[in-house]
């Protein structure tokens, strides 16, 4: 694959061409020249796009694609196409499948389904057999097959001894353990953030306390066991404080936040709209502000779309019966750009890679091109026409977003819309 990218503004602090507009020559997937005005050496594919910006490829640490088992929601193939169209060159796919991805063969299946796509699929194996929270799954064997981390998707490990053993065991091979931050007994039958809005709506609340108790527990365990802990999708002010303190102590903990938890508050639920039913729930403005501050000061390591396609039958029902989750890949960049500037946004979308063992390739001569192409300046109302996923459960539908993604070039494949 030989390409000449014309007139691209490079957003990459690791590159000497950061914040400059250049032509980029790519031969057989490797960057061979970056100069201000390159001529096409022959019949190289030329890419010229309006207000083109290029950055290192983006990464999402929590997506679901339905396959195997829930193909009516989405498939791995279409999920990866969605990711590519949304600017992501790598995604960590949760074991939110049926059967649950909890053994070597399942990981191998997922990887095989993901072959020959521009976006790389990094399978996350279940932490426990069938994600039942009872016995550890074969973590080492899954790791051998290519699982990058271990997570019972959105299910907390209620047994502290099991979490202790998981952290100890995975540390043998430097494995990354996820712990969903939720103390189930405190959640009870809660379906949204416990606050004044839940009171007004008569919906059972999920107190911030439920998240914070579990994080405190896990941080104590981590201090005891050592190992690598990742806390996905935190949502409260105190959670940020707890992780900030743990990092100051030197614990090997990272965390993420879902973009919708930065953008929306629980006031979005006033109309019982099930598209806003997500887990962790949308919280208050105080929480949103603390989460943003946590991203800026590095307490929170990465953002995630927490992409979870769900068919309409799971959403077009009474609020209590609706499933948690939203699609988010397609709106991730545009939503983040309403909260952060372009350089910050790109940083948030790339800085989680190291934790998941993904090589970072700066936009520099000699490196393979693993890049996202975008126009940061357009504003548009996010609608069904922007959704690539098979399911349309989008929390950002009808929101005015900023910046559109052209696509990616990665794995020596051009995937532009």
């Amino acid at each position, binding site marked *: 694959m030989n390409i000449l990218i014309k007139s691209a503004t490079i957003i990459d602090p690791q590159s000497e061409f950061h914040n400059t507009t250049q032509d980029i020559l790519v031969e057989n997937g490797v960057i061979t020249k970056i100069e201000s005005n390159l001529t096409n050496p022959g019949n190289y594919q030329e890419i010229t796009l309006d207000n083109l910006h290029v950055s290192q490829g983006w990464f999402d640490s929590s997506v679901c694609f339905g396959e195997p088992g829930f193909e009516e929601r989405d498939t791995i193939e279409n999920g990866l196409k969605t990711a590519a169209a949304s600017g992501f060159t790598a995604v960590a796919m949760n074991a939110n499948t049926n059967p649950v991805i909890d053994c070597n063969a399942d990981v191998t299946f997922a990887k095989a389904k993901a072959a020959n796509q521009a976006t790389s699929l990094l399978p996350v194996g279940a932490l426990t057999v069938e994600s039942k929270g009872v016995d550890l799954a074969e973590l080492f064997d899954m790791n051998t097959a290519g699982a990058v981390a271990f997570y019972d998707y959105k299910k907390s490990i209620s047994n502290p001894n099991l979490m202790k053993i998981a952290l100890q065991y995975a540390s043998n091979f430097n494995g990354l353990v996820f712990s969903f931050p939720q103390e189930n007994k405190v959640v*009870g*039958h809660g379906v949204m953030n*416990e*606050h*004044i809005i*839940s*009171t*007004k*709506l*008569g*919906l*059972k*609340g999920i*107190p911030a306390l439920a998240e914070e108790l579990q994080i405190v527990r896990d941080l104590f365990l981590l201090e005891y066991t050592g190992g690598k802990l990742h806390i996905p999708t935190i949502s409260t002010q105190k959670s940020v404080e707890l992780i900030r303190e743990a990092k100051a102590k030197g614990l090997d903990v990272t965390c993420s936040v879902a973009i919708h938890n930065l953008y929306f508050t629980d006031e979005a639920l006033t*109309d*019982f709209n099930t598209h806003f039913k997500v887990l962790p729930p949308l919280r208050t403005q105080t929480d949103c502000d603390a989460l943003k501050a946590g991203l800026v000061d590095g307490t929170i390591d990465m953002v995630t779309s927490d992409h979870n396609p769900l068919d309409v*039958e799971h959403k*077009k*029902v*009474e*609020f*209590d*019966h609706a499933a948690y989750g939203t699609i988010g890949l397609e709106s991730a960049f545009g939503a983040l750009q309403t909260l952060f500037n372009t350089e910050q946004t790109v940083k948030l979308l790339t800085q989680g890679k190291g934790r998941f063992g993904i090589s970072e390739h700066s936009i520099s001569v000699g490196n393979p091109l693993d890049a996202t192409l975008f126009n940061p300046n357009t504003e548009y109302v996010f609608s069904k026409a922007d959704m690539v996923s098979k399911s349309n459960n989008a929390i950002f539908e009808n929101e005015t977003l900023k910046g559109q993604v052209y696509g990616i070039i990665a794995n020596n494949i051009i995937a532009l819309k």
Partner: protein
Amino acid sequence: MSELSVNHLLGIKYLNEKDIQLIFETADHFKEVINRPIKKVPSLRDITIANLFFENSTRTKLSFELAEKRLSADVLNFSSAQSSVKKGETLIDTVNNILSMKVDMVVMRHPNPGAGVFLSKHVNASIVNAGDGAHEHPTQALLDSYSIRERLGDVAGKKVVIVGDILHSRVALSNIFALQLQGAEVMVCGPKTLIPRYIHELGVKVETDLRKALNWCDVANMLRVQNERMDISYFPSTREYTQQFGVNKELLNSLDKEIIIMHPGPINRGVEITSDVADSKQAIILDQVQNGVAVRMAVIYLLASKIKQ
């Protein structure tokens, strides 16, 4: 002619003060009608109403049915103790099946908060919420305010305490919204475990000492403890609850002034109020029941007149 600002009655929070006054003035008229020898008017001969009760109810269902029949509407009753979802059919499908038989209005009780709001977005009929989970029970709040107005002349400026299980109560929430809209002061009183943590942000006072609460108020609305909605014991025993939050005649007589006692029913005699309190002249519990029919006639009449437009 005055009309409601809404096409459905989904909750008090969707109404304005004028709506409430209009409903009360209309109810005044219907209260006179139901006390005539011929208790029926032909107003809604061309309207068909489906009463869909996805949760058990005795008095609300009877009250609505009677209100509809007094207005000469055609009435269809559907009861199912369990939600339609559990049977495999969605709520929208269940209701649309019924509506395809040319029904104009749906009165629905449902265990899930927001079920009425949800339905109003997806089906083509006027919806009256007859109680949706712990969300709202607007006609109950309307008849409660109507009964206060009847006994005390006005709701504005009155002090009302709602006692008991506030956490699981749609009656409490609708009453708070309705009373505040009319200019009353509201307090909630009960064990801390049964009071929503953030309820003070609605502008209500919170009190855990029943005697103090009763001494403060003009009206005490005693709620039933909703054991069926509890996922854990919020207090150790009924006996202990009654010791702290039950009203008996001795307590009532020891207060600085004579207060009004209300109860949305069904009463657990000896728990939230003793029999001698329930049957005393201070209690207006049976007035509430009678007013319920008139208020529901008013609501249905006013919504139906919007359909007819």
